[in-house]
């Protein structure tokens, strides 16, 4: 609908509009990122950063198995979180796009509000709910369960619950947008060809919703490897994930180069995993369903 205008990137009208974002993200995103990479090659002495180039931090990172165990755990949690989010989000997104005509906007507003509400508060709310003497057990006892029926607070399960809770909306929104774009007549054409509802869904809707599913998965994965609040507040800090390790390295151990290196490792591995999946996925598409 919107006409695309060809312009040289030097065009003043274009440059004027692009410049604020470019300046902001180069000075306050790209430059800090590059500096962080540079920091990994520095040393610390007596909790003070000293600008001397060295590979000390990196030999440390690559020789301590501890860091890598935590990273492995983080990647596992993030992957599980992506799978759960997609599984839960898909039917909701589909319902939002295909049903709920009258309530569609109310449901969207409710989800948006839940999404935009402060994550700390919501996570705190879960603590109150899941606590031994909290709301969940109170309700469970009311329903006739014995003792502490709900006892998952301060375990990995609670961490996972919090992660899914805080990231689910991303998947709902991206999948909803891509289902909403599907031309309804394509589905009708599938019915006309003799497909049942499920068959039409499987053969037409699902493949066409792939961009949204993929976008949601990537977004959630990248954000999930960086969670810190959930493992600390809901998981009780018992099995730390990478972000918590990084925070401790900065705050408790005051080792900036190491913290920077761990940050870089985490981001590199996360992006690498995404690219790997993308590769396998597109390979499979090219080879066809063998």
């Amino acid at each position, binding site marked *: *609908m*919107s*006409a*695309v*205008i060809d312009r*040289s*990137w030097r*065009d003043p009208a*274009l440059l*004027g*509009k*692009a410049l*604020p*974002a*470019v300046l*902001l*993200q180069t000075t*306050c*995103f790209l430059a*800090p990122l590059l*500096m962080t990479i540079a*920091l990994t090659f520095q040393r610390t002495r007596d909790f003070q950063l000293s600008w001397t180039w060295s590979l000390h931090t990196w030999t440390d990172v690559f020789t301590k198995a501890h860091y890598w165990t935590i990273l492995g755990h983080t990647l596992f949690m993030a992957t599980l979180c992506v799978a759960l989010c997609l599984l839960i989000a898909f039917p909701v997104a*589909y*319902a*939002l796009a295909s*049903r*709920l005509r009258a309530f569609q*906007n109310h*449901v969207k507003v*409710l989800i*948006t*509000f839940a999404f*935009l*509400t*402060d994550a*700390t508060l*919501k*996570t*705190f709310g879960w603590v109150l*709910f899941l*606590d031994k003497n909290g709301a969940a057990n*109170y309700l469970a006892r009311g329903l006739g369960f014995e003792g502490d029926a709900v006892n998952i607070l301060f375990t990995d399960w609670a961490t996972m619950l919090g992660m899914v*809770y805080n990231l*689910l909306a991303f998947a*709902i929104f991206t999948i909803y947008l891509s289902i909403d774009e599907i031309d309804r007549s394509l589905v009708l054409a599938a019915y006309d060809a003799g*497909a049942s509802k*499920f*068959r039409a869904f499987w053969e037409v809707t699902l493949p066409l919703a792939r961009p949204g599913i993929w976008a949601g998965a*990537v*977004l959630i994965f*990248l*954000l999930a*490897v*960086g969670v810190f*609040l959930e493992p600390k507040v809901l998981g009780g800090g018992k099995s730390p994930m990478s972000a918590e390790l*990084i*925070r401790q390295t900065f705050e408790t151990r005051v080792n*900036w180069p190491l913290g920077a290196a761990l*940050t870089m490792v*985490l981001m590199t591995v996360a992006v690498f995993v995404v690219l790997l999946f993308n590769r396998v996925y597109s390979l499979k598409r090219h080879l066809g369903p063998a």
Partner: protein
Amino acid sequence: MTGYPQPTPWLNARAEARLADVLLYGATGAVLLFFYIPIFTLIAFSFQEGRFLTLPFEGFSLRWYGELFRNSNAGNALWNSTLIAVVAMVFATLIGTLAAIVAVRYRFRLRIPFTGLAAAPLAFPQLLLGIVLLLWFSVLGRQFNFNTGLVTAIIGHVVYIAPFAMVIVAVQVFNFDATLEDAARDCGASNWAVYRYITLPLLWPGIFSAAIFSFLLSWGNFYLTYSLSGAARTLPTFVFSGIATGSSPLYPAIATVVFIPGILLVILADRMRRRAA
């Protein structure tokens, strides 16, 4: 000529439709319940009479709202949250809107790198963004002699939120018919008049939603504020430190107070968006 037989489904059509309905409505209901469990739990606990966050309640009262009112730290945090959110909203919306116009309306050689750079923080974990920026500001601060505080927190928020604003406005720009601008020029409008009478009014619903989204993302932000605000506290960091040192119904009361502008703004944004559609 009888043709091929009709395919036989594994369920008859009506049973299939009912199963689909149960699954879809069920999932939506369950997810809404899931989303609101902690929110309702917090609201409920804010009316607890006693000072422990356990059930059953000792009684219902508004006692903790009174405490909240008298607590100067909480008031301070509320003020800081609002200040950061308003300033971050203005800048994030402005930068995001301009970037969205560039990314959608123009085709130029550096479009893909530009869009990538402008949207990059969207996929960067907030805690890590906070840390990276903290390092940056610490190094710069040592050089130019400043400390982290409200200003650095605002910068961090804008870095993180401007991409969100860009995505929201981009949808509106995408649906914008550029010939309307040509039509206005043909009617005799200068570039400024085109902006004032056509472009801005038509993009306004998207800009408005982006502004509300920006405000709320900043208002409720924990990770970036936690890293970047120095000694200043906002509501989220205030609650976090409160939970860490032992809780009282004061915090659920704060949460409930925080929810109110949130839900009102979300409803308002939705109204605007629908009026424009």
